[in-house]
């Protein structure tokens, strides 16, 4: 499968838009992280991708074709919540998937379950939350799918197994498959994902490769001697993405050309001007938390 194209996807429940005009392109052979705060629309997006929810408008295309039952043979899914059958054993779940998917490899599933220390003979109802997640992950990765949609696949897992899941994801991408996943643990996304999209309120707020986003964005921080200071010349500057002020300290998120902004801060009287790199968590937080828009920068004249 070459790519997944989500175009202008919208899904409303009553008057609430869970996903609102989302457009994404997910290439094959990559790990794609979908980030967003709670209720941002990540799970709904996944459900629309898998046909579990019908889009109100917009399309999801796999290599240019709409989802069909046969397409699901090539898609593996780990849902956010436990959907396994409590009364069935782990081995029976493996058998269930063996019968459902032609490409499912039960030996691989048992191998993965062993790696996660899950006893195949146990009833799912007797497993811990983390172990149930491990079962769902093992079933998905044993499917030999071309697309893996993983909704918080490390939820409840211990750090060792979390790392194992990330390795599995990277391996799948290396084999040319597409891995789309969501997680609230940004560190994991930073470690595994090559590309990310951040959605908030059902809308896309940021998208790009992790390296580009990190390389392109800097924080210029300056400390002013007084609480009243001017930022003349920054308003409307296209490089200034947002400004956060905390009394004497100002932090400016800059996309490209950080040196120029640093120079302006110094000229405005700031001392200790620094240009800081961002990690993915910073980028995510800046994307989804409200800040001062560049047009709202309050420019005050320096006091004499």
């Amino acid at each position, binding site marked *: 499968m070459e790519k997944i194209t989500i175009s202008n996807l919208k899904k409303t429940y009553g008057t609430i838009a869970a996903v609102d005009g989302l457009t994404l392109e997910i290439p094959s052979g990559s790990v794609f992280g979908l980030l967003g705060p709670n209720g941002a629309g990540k799970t709904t997006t996944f*459900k629309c991708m898998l046909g579990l929810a*019908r889009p109100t408008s917009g399309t999801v295309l796999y290599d240019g074709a709409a989802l069909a039952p046969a397409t699901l043979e090539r898609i593996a899914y780990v*849902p956010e919540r436990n959907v396994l059958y409590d009364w069935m054993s782990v081995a029976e779940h493996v058998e269930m998937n063996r019968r459902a998917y032609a490409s499912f490899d039960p030996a691989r599933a048992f191998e993965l379950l062993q790696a996660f220390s899950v006893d195949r003979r146990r009833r799912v109802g007797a497993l811990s939350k983390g172990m149930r997640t491990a079962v769902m992950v093992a079933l998905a990765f044993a499917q030999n799918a071309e697309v893996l949609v993983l909704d918080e696949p490390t939820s409840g897992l211990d750090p060792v197994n979390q790392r194992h899941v990330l390795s599995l994801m990277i391996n799948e991408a290396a084999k040319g498959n597409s891995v789309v996943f969501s997680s609230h643990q940004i560190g994991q996304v930073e470690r595994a994902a090559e590309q990310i999209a951040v959605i908030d309120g059902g809308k896309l707020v940021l998208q790009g490769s992790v390296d580009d986003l990190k390389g392109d964005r800097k924080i210029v921080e300056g400390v002013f001697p007084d609480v009243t200071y001017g930022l003349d010349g920054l308003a409307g500057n296209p490089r200034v993405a947002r400004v956060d002020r905390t009394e004497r300290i100002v932090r400016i998120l800059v996309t490209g050309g950080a040196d120029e902004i640093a120079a302006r801060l110094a000229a405005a009287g700031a001392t200790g001007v620094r240009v800081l790199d961002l990690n993915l968590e910073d980028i995510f937080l800046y994307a989804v938390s409200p800040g001062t828009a560049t047009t709202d920068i309050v420019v005050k004249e320096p006091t004499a």
Partner: protein
Amino acid sequence: MNYVEWLRIRNYLRIVAIILGILVVLAIVLRVSFARYMSPDAWIGHMHTSKTVVTHVMLPDGTKRTILDNAADRTHVVIDDRGYAGKHIVVTEPTSRAHEDNSNVNFGSVAVHEIHHGAVTVTTIDTNGAVPMLYYMALADFVALIVATILAAALAREINGHLEISLTKPCPRARFALGVIAVDAAGILAASLMTIVAFYLCQLLFESARLDFSGINARAIAIGVVVPLAWYAMLLAATTWLYRAYGAVLGFAWPVVILLGILTAIQPTNAVALFVHDVAWTLSRLDPLSYVSFASPAYNGAMGDAGSSDFGLRFAIEVLLFVVYGALAVWQWRRVEA
């Protein structure tokens, strides 16, 4: 694709098998406990008085004949004991008033034929007649309807907790739902069959049971097969549409149909009662059970509804209800979203 439903049915049938197994064991205990009462010798002693002459004769075919003759009472009893093959008993006794009449009463394998001729009554009892399949089907349907009620939430259970599994299988939704219905139908019929086999085994413990498949019994089998399926389909449609409250639907299904049955049966005595009766009757038309009657040919040879002239219509309605309710369930299944 419907492996989960197979497992579910396997579990329910295992429970049915255990219950029926207990029943067979109880029958074995009963058979062993009452073994000595199976021979007429055990109870003849309690019947006759000192004036009764008892004669034992062994017939050429191995039949053990016992003749009780009481000249004082003008009572004559002939008991032909064929052992496992049953008994043929003829009782000749005086009657209190002279009249001409005869009657038949059948229950299970026992047939009682009574002739009043003048001042004498001759009663013939045969204990090894063919058992009408009607009885077996009534028992089988009782079990099948319980199993059908339990299975009828199949799609609702998927909607409530496992949609992410069932709808992401590479299978069209309608085919998945039809597969579930087919598997459940097989399970319901298997429960029926298991019940028939268990009760047949119980009967075999006491006599060489012969089954009567003819006439009304053939029709009873046809109705007996389709009724639990129509009942299942009705509840499946209801639970699939009201999936959040499927437990309540299943819990209230029996009380509601019983109430409708009572309201339909009561003869109205005033306008309000007539209105209630008519509403209940109309609603009961939606219930597959309302087209069934367990009336049997046991009493004076009266034919039950299963053998009545509108059997074809009733059977067709049951099949139609199964198809319509099944289609409603599949339609809703195709609409659901996770």
